[in-house]
């Protein structure tokens, strides 16, 4: 299957590369664009083919039910989808303000000499291996969050709400820290591209530095949206770090972010190594991958719609 896909994709790739370099630039670029669409389509088709045995057996139940019982060959991935949505939501909610803050700080507040250094440092955190973030989450962030959340909850509701250091919330906060540099990099570039005359006009209107920053952010809103979706994609797909701190609870449907849970990508990472020992686990994991892909495509469709409707 994979070998076949490789050949199917390699041929158009070579034709496109040939066209791009030797025949006509525009044709080649178009073909590469089409190739990307074809790759996504073929991947989705492959997920469907691999997941087909369990879809054939259980129908759509595999997407709509909550269970993970390999002993009885009974699988459902809904809890993993809600886990992905909840951790990504926490991550985005925390990361976007941080990313905006980083972008404005670098462009407005820091002295020019330090901008480059600070910017490179932020970019550097994006290159850190995710397993390092995972270990940090395991040893430092998880226990710290548990203490902090329980300290607050004891004074608010009189009880501990976070009984373990490894929860959906821990994963969300860790993801927020991991995706901030991605969003920040895009927003920072957009912010820096605000034309000088526009900036001068803003100040000429008597805007304070804070108001100017707000107006410039509004000007760069397409970049903010781009950063948002890039970061969201990273958050939804992150595997290793999340698998280490999410709490690995496969069989409970929960919407309480302070409980342990699971995400689709961490479920795949955790269960794949021994999945071959079961008849339907590999198809069930591919069903999870298919669900995540379709969900990602749906989000991107919404994004494209929003961007096109709100053309500046």
């Amino acid at each position, binding site marked *: 299957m994979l070998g076949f896909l490789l050949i199917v994709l390699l041929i158009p790739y070579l034709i496109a590369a040939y066209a791009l370099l030797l025949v006509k630039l525009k044709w080649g670029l178009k073909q590469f664009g089409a190739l990307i669409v074809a790759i996504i389509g073929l991947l989705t088709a492959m997920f469907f083919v691999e997941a087909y045995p369990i879809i054939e057996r259980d129908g759509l139940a595999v997407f709509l039910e909550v*269970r*993970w*019982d*390999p*002993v*009885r060959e009974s699988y459902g991935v809904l809890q993993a989808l809600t886990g992905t949505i909840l951790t990504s939501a926490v991550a985005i909610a925390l990361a976007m303000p941080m990313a905006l803050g980083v972008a404005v700080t670098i462009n407005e507040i820091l002295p020019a000499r330090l901008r480059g250094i600070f910017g490179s440092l932020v970019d550097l955190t994006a290159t850190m291996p995710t397993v390092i973030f995972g270990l940090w989450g*395991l*040893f430092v962030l*998880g*226990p710290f969050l*548990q203490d902090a959340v329980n300290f607050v909850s004891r004074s608010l509701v009189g009880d501990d709400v976070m*009984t*373990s*250091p*490894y929860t959906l919330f821990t994963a969300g906060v860790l993801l927020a820290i991991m995706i901030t540099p991605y969003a920040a990099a895009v927003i920072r570039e957009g912010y820096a591209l605000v034309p000088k005359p526009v900036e001068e006009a803003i100040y000429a209107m008597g805007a304070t530095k804070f108001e100017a920053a707000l107006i410039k952010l509004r000007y760069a809103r397409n970049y903010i949206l781009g950063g948002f979706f890039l970061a969201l994609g990273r958050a939804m797909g992150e595997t290793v770090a999340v*698998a*280490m701190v999410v*709490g*690995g*609870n*496969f*069989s*409970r449907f929960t919407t309480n972010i302070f409980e*342990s849970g*699971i995400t689709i990508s961490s479920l795949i990472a*955790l*269960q794949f*190594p*021994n*999945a*071959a*020992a*079961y008849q339907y686990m590999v198809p069930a994991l591919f069903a999870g991958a298919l669900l995540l892909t379709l969900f990602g495509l749906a989000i991107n469709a919404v994004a494209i719609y929003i961007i096109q409707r709100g053309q500046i």
Partner: protein
Amino acid sequence: MAPQMFSWSRTFHRVTEGKIQVNYQSIGSGAGAAQFLEKKLDFGASDVPMPRARYEQAAGRFVQFPVIIGSIVLVYNLPELAYSKTGKYLNLTSEVISLIYMGEIKQWCDPRIKALNPGLADKLPCKEIVAVHRSDGSGTTAAFTLYLSRAYQPWNQTVGWGFTVNWPADEKAKGMGAKGNEGVAQAVLQTPHSIGYVEFAYWSKNKDKYDKVGGVAFVRNDNDGKYYFPTAENVAMGAAAGLERYTKKYGAKPAPDADWNPVSIELSNPPRGYPILAFTYVFLWKDYAAEGYGDAATKVALLKEFFRWVLTEGQKPANVVEGFIPLPPEVAKIGLEALELVKP
């Protein structure tokens, strides 16, 4: 099992003066068995015997034999009765362990836990138990759940055993998963009022840390009614007793090309000794040339040399990683006989 294989392959590389390099990767027991059968690997190693369905696919064409014994311990985090404060470890039984992971025993002050620990009864806190289990599929989970299935009938009916199971405590109580032995070990150290199961080595290396926040449990062998601490002697006693039971039941020692699932079942919850233990197995083809391996003669010679060393020199205390138990000589002999079945 990975630490022991790495250590053997390193030592063997040294004793052969760098001539022979055994490349072992820890990819998971299920994947190891599957890739061995797909002939992507020269040999496979697994914490469980070849599963029955897969065994039947290749029955008679390959051999499996134990190379080392591992044991699983229950570690807990209970600051109120940490070993460093009380000088005592908890007593547990298969029934209580099962009920905790089934979400039926929810609090540490449950009368069923108190009854096993009269000396600590007044100190057991009325806090909810966080039951930590593996979130990845693992041979450790398979051995642990096999023990519970064997020792406590209701567990067998409601949960069963395997690389991954559906933990009722996840739904009914405060169940939680962690990745790898190291993840469970860390989660228990970090989470007050938690309990978890790990390979022996992951406790023994961090013994002092556990003693500060809790400790490791004595486990009752339900067959002789005694509580056993997970020492090397008690685990070895369990292995010998389990094998004795197998031989009595089936009339002979297991053969290398037989299905070893009955052996792992008899070994679990043995008549005496520490009850949570398992063999680690190695799989070899009987005829590498016929299975389509290239350069079969050289490969077989190297594999035989390595495993002969593992089953003899490798079993000496200096070559066994702390936490693993060397094979009794009569079990090592089964492996040596298995090597004879591999065609040169």
